[in-house]
């Protein structure tokens, strides 16, 4: 939980270091080495490659390629849809799991983590087997409705949703548990309707945590590759999201094009990171406020 991590950072600052100097230097250098090799160098390399033909080359690769343009467009459709549905479901799930006690509650809580444990490729395959129009379990129903899921955008949304569903609920459950339900009960006794309670009491209390969860969910949704790859069927100008497009361009030996799209994804990730840091502080502050009462 992020709240904990903030607290640990604080105590770590006060920790007395009694290990020998050479040991500390070794450990710290090792950390820097790993960060350098795995994160910093590749990150810089993405931008170096993306701009290898200059800014105009980068711009051309992004917006003068019809297929790339379509992939940006598709991502801008699929991701907000998946995030929106997951936000609503995540709030509902967190509310249900924290405010009520019912049989199977712990099981449901564990099931929420399943998408983190299951390989995205397996998840995608699952959807293909269930919803394809020829041999799928739901094929008769889908055919009669004339609705295509696999190898079409609804499949992309579903696969993205599956992979990112835990983020919002996982963020809210500990927060809502810490807040308790006293304030909601007080609102009830003051005559508020359930709807008023949600908008005036619950939502303002969880807003930073919610936003934090949404941002994480969004970042993961944009970058999702495995599950989407399987359900997309890779149809040009139909089912290529940005992440899939990066791979396609790379396979076609179009390195600058591939890196240009990758650089946009990276920029999105970096801005998410900055937002995350800001929000983490907000959430920690609201948690502290709750514990002081």
């Amino acid at each position, binding site marked *: 939980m992020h709240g904990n991590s903030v607290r640990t950072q604080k105590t770590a600052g006060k920790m007395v270091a009694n290990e020998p100097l050479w040991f500390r230097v070794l450990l710290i250098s090792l950390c820097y080495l790993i960060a350098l090799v795995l994160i910093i160098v590749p990150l810089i390399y993405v931008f170096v490659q993306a701009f290898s033909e200059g800014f105009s080359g980068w711009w051309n690769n992004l917006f003068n390629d019809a297929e790339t343009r379509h992939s940006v467009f598709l991502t801008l459709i699929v991701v907000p849809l998946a995030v929106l549905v997951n936000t609503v479901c995540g709030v509902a799930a967190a509310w249900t799991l924290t405010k009520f006690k019912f049989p199977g509650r712990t099981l449901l809580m564990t099931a929420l983590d399943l998408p983190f444990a299951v390989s995205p490729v397996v998840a995608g395959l699952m959807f293909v087997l269930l919803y394809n129009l020829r041999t799928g379990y739901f094929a008769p129903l889908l055919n009669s409705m004339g609705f295509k899921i696999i190898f079409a955008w609804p499949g992309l949304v579903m696969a993205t949703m599956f992979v990112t569903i835990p983020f919002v609920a996982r963020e809210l459950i500990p927060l809502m548990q810490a807040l308790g339900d*006293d304030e909601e009960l*007080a*609102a*009830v*006794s003051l005559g*508020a*309707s359930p709807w008023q309670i949600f908008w*005036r009491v619950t939502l303002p209390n969880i807003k930073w945590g919610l936003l934090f969860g949404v941002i994480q969910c969004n970042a993961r949704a944009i970058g999702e590759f495995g599950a989407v790859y399987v359900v997309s069927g890779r149809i040009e100008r139909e089912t290529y999201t940005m992440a899939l497009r990066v791979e396609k361009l790379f396979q076609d030996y179009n390195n600058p094009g591939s890196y240009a799209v990758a650089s946009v994804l990276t920029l999105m990730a970096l801005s998410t990171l900055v937002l995350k840091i800001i929000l983490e502080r907000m959430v920690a502050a609201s948690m502290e406020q709750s514990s002081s*009462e």
Partner: protein
Amino acid sequence: MSISVQNLSKRFGDFVALKNVNLEVPSDSLTALLGPSGSGKTTLLRIISGLESADEGSILFKDEDVTTRSARDREVGFVFQHYALFRHMTVFENVAFGMRVRNSPNNEVRERVNELLHLVRLEGLGQRYPSELSGGQRQRVALARALAVKPRMLLLDEPFGALDAKVRQELRTWLRKLHEEMHVTTVFVTHDQEEAFEMADQVVVMSQGHIEQTGTPQAVFDNPATSFVMDFLGNVNVFHGRVQSGRVQMGPFSLQYDEYQHEEPRDATAYVRPHELDIDRSPSQASLLGKIKQINPAGSVLKVRVAVEEFGVELNVDVTHYRAKQLELKLNDIVYVHPRSVRVFMPETDYVI
């Protein structure tokens, strides 16, 4: 508005929180639900408010059955133990909440909130947030918030539980005065017998999900109905003995006891309050020889602990400062202790036989 609780029962799984509770709260009174934790007092309060539902029985406000009504529609002011203020709202908006959800016009809200902030002596703090207030101030905001919607009654759950002794004392006196000015039927839960006796018109002593005794503080204190009540209402000295033929025998004491005239002896327990014991230098009929182990001043009295070897017990005796000076009491002095009055309770099963 009077409250009537009829044959109320409530279980949480295997735990019986309330069993067949009956209670009348007179209109405009200040009633204390007093009992140890787990006695069901908070559950009873929450069922009256509608925040919890009963398994059996009914709740009447005056003549109106509200048992199936939700907390939202009961028009009850509820003050939570930990205040449950809306942390993201200012003090002003906290108090205004009940009116806001009823869509009261803005000027009306402002007028009423300012009036209430004046009443709870928090003028000028309207724009603060709950986290910027002291415990006592938060409690008063919670009270103002509950009063804002002109509730038919006020229910308080351990209202001063989380406050330090001095603030608690101030708020008790203040709440009692406020109650006299407002005339709202008020029920509060407490585990502190001093608090209950100091504030309430009516004290309801509860234990293990049922009511042990209901009455005015004076009546409950002077005539405890059961050994539990006797034990719970402050310090007591306990003697084990037996009753027989209209007398109770406790070691050297023998006192008249008209309630039991049988010849067959029965076990009984006698309770003596510390202020009902006298200390003297010379023996009288029915006194115990003991040695002073401890002398502590506690307000208007001295608390003296006397070890009685014959019984293997230590007695708590309240002695006035004047009397202590007269007797020149010191540690390790040998003194005689004798009770002025004794209450005898026999185990309930004995009555059945």
